[in-house]
């Protein structure tokens, strides 16, 4: 595989190199790898910006580190935050550069990938940078009032520890912690450093104090399960910081990109932070199910506000029909304004009236006496009454009820500039932006970059001539003959000691697995009864023979038994998806490690190989990726005849990911090895993190259907396929391909543990 790559360089790569024009030899070394990753995740404009900015960092005069880190880390940061996050980040770096704080740039960049994973959204990243900026401004050059060019002593430390810090507290908590540090150690360089490097006792104590509430990142799986289990849906969660923006608290909302939720919720009124998240989700799901957007143009702001209150109450009423217990939760979280809290002589009270009405619609024991409130509460319930023709009512219908409410209760003072806000906010409700349509459609659709991938020609793999496999075309329901070319090659070799280290790292797990394996062992040794000659007497059978003899029948002479080892007769093929996406960091609940999916897969596969080797089942491992149908690569890692030795471990150690996922072709190719095995049962395990796809196939159904077809073909050949999928959103396609033969592992961190366990469960 290792071709001499000194002389020839692809013209495109050469052009990129020239665009970067950075003379450091360290940069030249990693450049191609960085570009390969960047090309697979960035758009064309993104690549341009990437190179331009790297060029700036190179020439900035702070050595090689900034540009090196940026080149290596940006692609993964861009996948987390979106490539449009770059201007704000570069802006921030520029500010440090122009101040005496250039030394802080490196730690900032070094931790940027980790912090962005934790922060998860551009908005939160902005909050983080604003915080750091304020920090910088307040601690730079202010020591003992001497206005010279002192750099902030604490800032570099702060950046170094930011991933840890963000793991402990929300952005708002971080802000308080920083504030305390600046206030107390603003003009004491050493102690400031101690504080921000978490050395001093009060630094840790303060941090402890800010550790409150329920963090969204720690509960994503629970909320996923909540949506899936109770509402049969799923969503992507995007956190934002509460309280950070002190003037206007952000409100949850949802759009195409996901559901926006605060990064932390404290317990209130006896409701846990987790349940508060659930309340928001229940409300939002209510809208998704039952709200149809209506035109806003004809309504005044008052009317819209009223419509929103009524519609919120309607979707909640419907949600409570599904889950009556939600009422308890909503009531605890809904404000209960006092009836006389707002003075209509001086203040605009519409908001106050609506909040009370909203309470009354939710809470039968509201206790309000206002006649109009009671009247409209009744009319609302009549509209929603089960038994009518349309028991769910509709956004349209509820809007007209809201309009008549506004008309009936109108007061001159509603127009006053002073609005009564107190105790009227229902904070588990979203901002209802989805509810309105406008005749004047301003084109604010998010412009999605077409993430065009520029594919680099690479040296052809050395090795065997390609094998050709058909591919299923679901549109015409026919095979395209010899459609995919599969090149097989030996996986390059790395250092086998690395795998041994991984196994040592998981020694405790291995020990547990060993116990499970031992349980499989007894089956391993089976009794063979009815033997004329054997190792011991089979008392049961001997007795029966005696009875036969006594009763005059011919006794069975086969009264001995012997033992046969290995009753298991399973051949296993493990097929690894080695496509580019495995290079992504594994994100999971409470995840702080920097491991990629690839690394976790490597650990898991090592453990599995170790386990299967212990069991003695014939076992092969292959990896695959593809770069169009003309170039599907099958990387041989372990063959059936090979032992689990350093050769194989070395190949596993060098596991790398690139390109796309043409699954069907790879399965067919792997199957021809498995098929040749003489075993009773043949099992093909496919470990993947996404759906089949390839750069030359736009219609994603095609490759999904082809993979499904491959599963059928294999089934006819007596091969049982089973997919272990690491994509939490896999439900959309994985069952289409594998029927019931799959597991989705949401919590990728646990893959090393789950993979061998799954294998054991499958074959016991």
């Amino acid at each position: 595989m290792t071709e001499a790559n000194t002389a020839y360089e692809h013209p495109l790569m050469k052009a990129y190199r020239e665009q970067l024009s950075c003379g450091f030899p360290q940069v030249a070394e990693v450049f191609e790898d960085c570009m390969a990753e960047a090309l697979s995740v960035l758009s064309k404009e993104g690549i341009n910006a990437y190179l331009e900015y790297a060029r700036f960092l190179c020439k900035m005069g702070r050595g090689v580190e900034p540009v090196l880190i940026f080149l290596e880390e940006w692609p993964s940061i861009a996948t987390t935050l979106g490539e449009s996050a770059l201007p704000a980040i570069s802006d921030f770096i520029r500010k440090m550069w122009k101040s005496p704080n250039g030394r802080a740039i490196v730690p900032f960049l070094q931790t940027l990938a980790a912090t962005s994973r934790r922060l998860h959204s551009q908005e939160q990243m902005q909050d983080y940078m604003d915080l750091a900026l304020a920090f910088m401004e307040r601690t730079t050059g202010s020591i003992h009032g001497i206005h010279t060019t002192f750099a902030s002593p604490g800032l570099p430390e702060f950046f170094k520890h930011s991933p840890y810090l963000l793991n402990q507290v929300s952005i708002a908590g971080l802000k308080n912690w920083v504030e305390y540090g600046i206030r107390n150690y603003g003009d004491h360089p050493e102690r400031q450093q101690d504080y921000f490097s978490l050395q001093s006792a009060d630094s840790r104590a303060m941090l402890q104090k800010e550790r409150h509430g329920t963090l969204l990142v720690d509960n994503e799986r629970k909320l996923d399960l909540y949506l899936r289990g109770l509402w049969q849906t799923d969503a992507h969660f995007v956190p934002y910081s509460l309280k950070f923006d002190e003037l206007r608290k952000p409100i949850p909302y949802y759009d195409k990109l996901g559901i926006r939720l605060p990064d932390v919720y404290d317990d209130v009124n006896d409701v846990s932070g987790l349940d508060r998240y659930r309340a928001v989700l229940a409300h939002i799901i209510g809208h998704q199910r039952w709200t149809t957007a209506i035109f806003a143009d004809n309504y005044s702001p008052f009317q819209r506000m009223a419509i929103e209150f009524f519609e919120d109450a309607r979707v909640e009423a419907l949600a409570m029909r599904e889950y009556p217990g939600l009422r308890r939760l909503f009531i605890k979280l809904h404000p209960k304004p006092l009836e006389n809290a707002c003075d209509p002589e001086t203040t605009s009270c519409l908001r106050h009236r609506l909040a009370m009405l909203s309470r009354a619609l939710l809470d039968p024991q509201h206790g309000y006496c206002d006649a109009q409130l009671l009247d409209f509460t009744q009319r609302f319930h009549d509209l929603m009454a089960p038994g009518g023709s349309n028991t769910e009512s509709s956004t349209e219908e509820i809007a007209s009820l809201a309009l008549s409410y506004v008309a009936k209760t109108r007061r001159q003072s509603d127009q006053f500039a002073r609005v009564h806000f107190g105790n009227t906010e229902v904070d588990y409700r979203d901002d209802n932006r989805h509810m309105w349509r406008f005749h004047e459609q301003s084109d604010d659709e998010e412009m999605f970059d077409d993430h065009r991938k520029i594919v680099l020609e690479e040296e052809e793999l050395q090795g065997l001539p390609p094998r050709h496999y058909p591919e299923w075309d679901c549109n015409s329901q026919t095979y395209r003959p010899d459609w995919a070319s599969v090149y097989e090659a030996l996986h390059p070799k790395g250092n086998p000691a690395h795998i041994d280290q991984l196994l040592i790292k998981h020694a405790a797990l291995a020990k547990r697995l060993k116990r499970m394996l031992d349980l499989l062992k007894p089956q391993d040794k089976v009794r063979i009864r009815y033997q004329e000659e054997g190792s011991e007497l089979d008392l049961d059978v001997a007795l029966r023979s005696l009875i036969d003899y006594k009763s005059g029948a011919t006794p069975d002479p086969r009264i001995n038994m012997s033992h046969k080892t290995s009753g298991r007769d399973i051949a296993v093929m493990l097929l690894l998806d080695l496509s580019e996406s495995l290079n992504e960091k594994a994100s999971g609940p409470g995840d702080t490690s920097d491991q990629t999916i690839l690394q976790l897969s490597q650990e898991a596969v090592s453990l599995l190989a170790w386990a299967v080797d212990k069991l003695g089942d014939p076992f092969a491992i292959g990896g695959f990726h593809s770069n169009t149908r003309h170039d599907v690569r099958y990387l041989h890692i372990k063959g059936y005849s090979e032992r689990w030795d350093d050769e194989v471990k070395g190949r596993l150690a060098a596991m790398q990911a690139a390109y796309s996922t043409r699954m069907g072709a790879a399965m067919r190719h792997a199957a021809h090895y498995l098929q040749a095995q003489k075993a009773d049962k043949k099992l093909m395990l496919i470990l993947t993190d996404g759906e089949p796809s390839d750069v030359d196939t736009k219609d994603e159904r095609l490759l999904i259907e082809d993979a499904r077809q491959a599963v059928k073909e294999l089934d006819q050949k007596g091969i049982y396929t089973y997919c272990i999928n690491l994509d939490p959103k896999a439900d959309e396609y994985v069952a289409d391909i594998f029927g019931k033969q799959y597991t989705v592992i949401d919590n990728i961190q646990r893959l090393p543990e789950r993979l061998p366990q799954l294998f054991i469960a499958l074959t016991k």
Partner: protein
Amino acid sequence: MTDKDQYKIRKEPFYQAQGKEVALYEAAYVARLPVMIKGPTGCGKSRFVEYMAWRLGKPLITVACNEDMTASDLVGRYILEANGTRWLDGPLTTAARIGAICYLDEIVEARQDTTVVIHPLTDHRRTLPLDKKGELIEAHPDFQLVISYNPGYQSLLKDLKQSTKQRFTAFEFDYPDAQLETGIVAKETGTDETLAGKLVKIGRTARNLKGHGLDEGISTRLLVYAATLIKGGVEPRDACRMALVRPITDDADIRDTLDHAIDATFAV
């Protein structure tokens, strides 16, 4: 001669049909075709067979299979007695002689060599050779073989051989839809439909999580258990946690989600 009547189902078992399975089974029985019933645990397979036996007025012999079962456990063996030995028919033999429906429950649990003895009974021969006794039994005209298994365990070693599978007609059972299942739980336990509906709702929540940390959802059987506990005076939420959640999972996140589903389902 064995007393046929002891195997008869005297009282009509409650069975709620999910589709056309009753008519289809009757058709299979008329032709004496062997029947296989697939489906997840506790979804009503055994109950269905019991009901059909009652409906057809035929005796029913049920055998719960396990991994230690041998062919003689099905077919029969000689036993020692004071004055010599005596042949004792196994349940399969008895069924073939008296013309019963023989129901082999969870057949995949049995060792594979055991399943082979049923082969001659399931094709046109309809015979059962008793090698030991040197007898070939012609199955009684009323005899029929029914097997059940749960494909959901997903252990490929516990799959039936093709040669066995291909001797049966098959029903694929699943948990009934919400309305039917509510009716089943209510009728089976005498609880009201509202309560039964809530239990079913919780059951379905768990089934939605299958493949995301749960291997099997909550079965109809467990729903019946929960209803029974509540009927006996246990507080509904406690009953649900005890009968529905704790048995099926050790995953803390899932337990938490299901506990929440229980809270969300019960208003007070």
